[in-house]
C-alpha cells in the first residue's frame, strides 16, 4: 500500500465495541426532544387532571362548563373560520393575479405582498386601534367631525375588526404557497385544455385550481393553526370590549391570578381546550381538503403564458394597490406618525410632532434591556435550533433508526401547539416543579420555550437540504479515508450550510417580534422587545409604544435585508 503515515496498525478493528456516532446522535436527539417537547406537554395534561398526585377532573370540568370560557372558545372558532375562509380566497386571488395575469408592476407588488409576513401582527392591531377605535380612533373622529355623524362609523374592537386585522397578516401564507405552485406548474397542461376547446374560466376552474389545490390547502392549514393560536391581535383589540379568545383568556386568567399555582392550573385546563379545538380543526381540515398531490408540479420554474386581463386590467390593478395601501402602508405610517406625536389624541399635524418619545424610550433602561434580551434569546434560539434541528433532521433522514417516525412527530408537534399553551407547559415544567430546577423569571425559561416553538422550522429546512445530499457523497468520502465524523464535517455540513443559515433566520426573525409566549414568561428583568411594546401600550403610553414599535420595525427590516444579502450569494451547490 502506498500510504504509510496513517496506515492502519490494527486492521482487526473489532466491530461493535465502541458506541457508534450514529447511535450517539440518535440517543441525543431522543433525549433532547423529551426534555424540550415531551416534558412540557406532559406537565400540562398532568396538572389539568391531577392535583397533588390525585386524579381530580373537577377543575377541568368546571373550566369547561364556565360560560365565559365557552364564549371565548366560540370566539376563537369563529375568528379562525372567517380568517381562514377569507384569507384563502384573498391569497388565491392575488396569487393568480400576480402569478398569471398581465397586471402591471408585478415584481414590486409581490415584494410588498410579502411584507405583512415580516410585520408583527400586534403592531398592526395597535395601528388599526389608533385609527378605528370605537371611541377615540383618529379616522373615526375625523369621519364624525366631517360628516356630523352621531356615532363612530367603524369599530375595530369587535370580532369583525379582529378578523380584518388577522386576515391582513395571514393571507400571505396562502398567497406565497400558491404563487410558487403556479410558477412551477407546467403551462402546457393549461394550453392543452385551451386547445381542446375549454374557455379561459373553465381552464381556471377545471385545470389550474385542482392542480394548485394541495398548495392552497397547505396554506389554509397554516392560516387555521396560526389564527386559532393567535394572541397579539385579539388581546390588543378585544380586551377593552371584553372579547376573549382562548389564548387571550389563558393570559387573562393567569395574569389575574398573579401567577399563583391555581391560576396556572386553570390556564392548563384552558390550554387543553385550545389544543382540542386545534386538533379537531386539523382533522376536519384534512377531511375536507384531502386532495392528492400531483407530480405535475415540477421543481424547475417555467414560463407560463400570461392571461390578458384586457378591460379589467386597470380596475384590478387599482384594487390590488388599494389592498396593499390598506394592509401595508396605512398601519406602518400610523405607527411612525403616532410615535412622533407629543401626546396621544392630539391631531397628527407637524406642529404636534416631536422626537421626545424616542428620547424617552431610549432613556429608559427597560428599552435597552428588552432589545438586549430579545437579541440574546432570538440569536441563542436560532443558533441552538439550527444545530439541534440539523441533528434531528440527520437522524431522521440519514440514520433512519427505529422510531424515526416518533422523532419526526415530536419535533413538529410544538408547531401545532399554540404558543400560549407551550408557555404554560414550560412554566409547569421548569419553575421548580420538576427535579427542583427553577428557571422562572429568568431569561432561560423564555429560551427553552423558544427552542420548543421554533425547532421544527430549522428541522424542516435542514431536512429538505439533506434530502438533496445523495448518500454516495458521504460514502465516497468514507472510502477516500475520511472517518464518519470527518465525512460529516467535510462533506455533509458544507453542503447543507445554506439551509442551516436560512433555518437560523427563519427562527431569528419571528423570535425577535415574538409576544405570545414571552408575555406569559417574562420576569421583571427579562422583558423582550415585544413584551416591552405591549406593556408600554398597556400602561397607556401610546406614543412611546408606537415609537418603540417603529424601532422594532426598523430592526426587523435591517435584519431581513442582511438575510437576503447573505442568502443571495451561496456557493454553487
Amino acid at each position, binding site marked *: 500500500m*502506498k*500510504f504509510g503515515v496513517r496506515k492502519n496498525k490494527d*486492521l*482487526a478493528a473489532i466491530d461493535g465495541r465502541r458506541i457508534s456516532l450514529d447511535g450517539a446522535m440518535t440517543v441525543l436527539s431522543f433525549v433532547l426532544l423529551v426534555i424540550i417537547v415531551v416534558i412540557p406537554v406532559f406537565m400540562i395534561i398532568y396538572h389539568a387532571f391531577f392535583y397533588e398526585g390525585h386524579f381530580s377532573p373537577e377543575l377541568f370540568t368546571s373550566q369547561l362548563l364556565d360560560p365565559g370560557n365557552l364564549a371565548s372558545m366560540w370566539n376563537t372558532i369563529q375568528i379562525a373560520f372567517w380568517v381562514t375562509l377569507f384569507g384563502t380566497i384573498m391569497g388565491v386571488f392575488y396569487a393568480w393575479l400576480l402569478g398569471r395575469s398581465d397586471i402591471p408592476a408585478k415584481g414590486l407588488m409581490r415584494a410588498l405582498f410579502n411584507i405583512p409576513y415580516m410585520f408583527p401582527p400586534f403592531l398592526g392591531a395597535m395601528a388599526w386601534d389608533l385609527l378605528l377605535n370605537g371611541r377615540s380612533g383618529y379616522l373615526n373622529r375625523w369621519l364624525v367631525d366631517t360628516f356630523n355623524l352621531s356615532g363612530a362609523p367603524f369599530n375595530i374592537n369587535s370580532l369583525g375588526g379582529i378578523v380584518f386585522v388577522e386576515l391582513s397578516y395571514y393571507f400571505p401564507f396562502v398567497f406565497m404557497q400558491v404563487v410558487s405552485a403556479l410558477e412551477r406548474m407546467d403551462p402546457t397542461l393549461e394550453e392543452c385544455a385551451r386547445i381542446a376547446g375549454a374557455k379561459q374560466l373553465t381552464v381556471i376552474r377545471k385545470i389550474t385550481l385542482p392542480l394548485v389545490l394541495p398548495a392552497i390547502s397547505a396554506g389554509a392549514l397554516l392560516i387555521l393553526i396560526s389564527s386559532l393560536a393567535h394572541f397579539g391581535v385579539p388581546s390588543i383589540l378585544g380586551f377593552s370590549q371584553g372579547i376573549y379568545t382562548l389564548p387571550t383568556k389563558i393570559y387573562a386568567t393567569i395574569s389575574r391570578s398573579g401567577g399563583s399555582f391555581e391560576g396556572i392550573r386553570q390556564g392548563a385546563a384552558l390550554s387543553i381546550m385550545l389544543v382540542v379545538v386545534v386538533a379537531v380543526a386539523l382533522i376536519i381540515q384534512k377531511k375536507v381538503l384531502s386532495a392528492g398531490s400531483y407530480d405535475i408540479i415540477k421543481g424547475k420554474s417555467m414560463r407560463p403564458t400570461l392571461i390578458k386581463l384586457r378591460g379589467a386590467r386597470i380596475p384590478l390593478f387599482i384594487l390590488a394597490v388599494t389592498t396593499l395601501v390598506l394592509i401595508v402602508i396605512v398601519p406602518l405610517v400610523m405607527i411612525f406618525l403616532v410615535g412622533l406625536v407629543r401626546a396621544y389624541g392630539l391631531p397628527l399635524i407637524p406642529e404636534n410632532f416631536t422626537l421626545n418619545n424616542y428620547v424617552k424610550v431610549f432613556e429608559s433602561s427597560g428599552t435597552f434591556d428588552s432589545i438586549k434580551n430579545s437579541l440574546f434569546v432570538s440569536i441563542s434560539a436560532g443558533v441552538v435550533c439550527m444545530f439541534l434541528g440539523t441533528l434531528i433532521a440527520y437522524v431522521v433522514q440519514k440514520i433512519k433508526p427505529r422510531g424515526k417516525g416518533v422523532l419526526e412527530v415530536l419535533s413538529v408537534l410544538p408547531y401545532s401547539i399554540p404558543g400560549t399553551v407551550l408557555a404554560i407547559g414550560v412554566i409547569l415544567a421548569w419553575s421548580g416543579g420538576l427535579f427542583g430546577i427553577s428557571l422562572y423569571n429568568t431569561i432561560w425559561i423564555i429560551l427553552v420555550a423558544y427552542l420548543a416553538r421554533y425547532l421544527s422550522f430549522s428541522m424542516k429546512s435542514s431536512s429538505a437540504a439533506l434530502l438533496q445530499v445523495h448518500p*454516495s457523497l458521504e460514502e465516497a468520502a*468514507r472510502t*477516500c479515508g475520511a472517518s464518519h465524523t470527518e465525512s460529516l464535517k467535510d462533506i455533509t455540513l458544507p453542503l447543507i450550510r445554506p439551509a442551516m443559515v436560512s433555518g437560523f433566520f427563519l427562527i431569528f426573525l419571528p423570535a425577535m417580534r415574538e409576544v405570545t409566549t414571552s408575555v406569559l414568561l417574562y420576569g421583571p428583568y427579562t422583558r423582550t422587545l415585544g413584551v416591552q411594546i405591549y406593556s408600554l401600550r398597556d400602561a397607556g403610553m401610546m406614543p412611546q409604544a408606537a415609537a418603540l414599535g417603529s424601532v422594532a420595525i426598523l430592526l426587523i427590516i435591517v435584519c431581513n435585508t442582511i438575510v437576503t444579502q447573505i442568502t443571495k450569494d451561496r456557493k454553487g451547490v
Partner: protein
Amino acid sequence: MANVVFKDISFRYGDNQVLKNFSMEVDSGQILCLVGPSGCGKTTLVRCLLGLSKPETGEIWVGDTCLFSAARRINVPAERRNIGIVFQDYAVWPHMTVKENVLYPMKKHRVPKQEAEKRAMHALQQVNMTEYANHLPSQLSGGQQQRVAIARALVGNGDLIVMDEPITNLDAKLREQMLAEIRQIQRSSGTTVLYITHDQESALQLCDKMAIMQQDGSLCQTGTDEDIILRPANRFTFEFIGVSNFLRVVRKNGALGLDVGNAVIPWQAELPDGLDPDKGKGVELGVRPNDIEFDPASPIRAKVRRCVFLGSEYDYFVDLGQRELRVQQSTLAAARTGVMREGSEVGLRLLNPRYYEAKEAKA
C-alpha cells in the same frame, strides 16, 4: 497490485436474502467485469467490499489483508480499506473544485502537500482534465465529472479500484470513449479493477475476465469473454449475453423434432445427459441469431417478415411456422449471397445449437 477474494459472503436486507455464500476472486492487475441483471446484488457486493454494508458470513481479502471476516470478527471500517471507488452517480463533491476533490483522499491519508499536489496533477493528466482543475463540478459535463471521479479513485489507491456502473449515465459515443480511457489508465497504472455493470456490451469491450451473476445473487460463470460467449455454462449466461432464439425439442414417433407451433420439423441431435423431451419441463434448443445461416437447400423453410439494415449487419425477423426467429447476417455475407427480401421464403441452417431444460412445461 492486489487480488480480491470474496469467500462465502451472505447478506440480506430484512427477509430479502441478497447474497448467499457468494465466492469470487479478482486476479491481480486485471479488469474483472461483474455482469448481472439489475437487482441481482452486484451493488450490495460492492458495498460489502467497501465496508459500507456488513455481511452476515464470509471473508473478504484484498491482497494479503483481511478486510472482513465474520468468524474472526474483523470488520475494517470503510475509511481504512484503501479502495478507490467510482459510483454510478459520480459522487463528485459539488462544493469542492476538481482539484480539491482529487486532493481530498490524500489529505485524509496525510500525504505531504507537495507530493499530493504532484500526484493530483498526474491523475488529472491521466484523465485529461488538467485544464479544469479549478472548476466546480457544476460547471462540468457528466463525462467530465466521471473523469474527476476516476482521477479521485486513482490517487486514493493504486491497488484496487471499484467501478459501479460508472458510464450508464453517458451517451453512447462518450461511453465508448470512456471505456477506452479506463482500459488505457488501467494498463498504465496496473491497478486491479472490479467493474460492475448490467450492460454486457461494455463489459465485453473492457474486461480481461467476466463474471456472470444470476438474478438470485449466485455466480454462474467466470471466465474470459470468449469462454462466456462461446461456452456459456448454463441457459442464464446464454440468454443474458446477447440475443438468443429458443425452439422446443419434441419426440414424435421415436424421432426428435422441433416444435414450431403448426408443425414439427425433423431434427437430429445428440441430447446431453439428463435432458429428455418427455421428462421434466422438456428441452429447448437455443441458437444465436448469428449462428443461423441462409441456405436454399435446407429443409427448414421459413419466411422473412422484416429486414433491418444496421450498417455492419442485417437483422432479420423470420417466421418459422408460428415461431419468430432473429437472424443476423453480416454485411459481408449478405454481399455474397444477396439480401433476403421481406416476404421471400428462405431455407435456414441452425449452427452451434445448444440444449437446455425448458423454462416452463409444455402447455
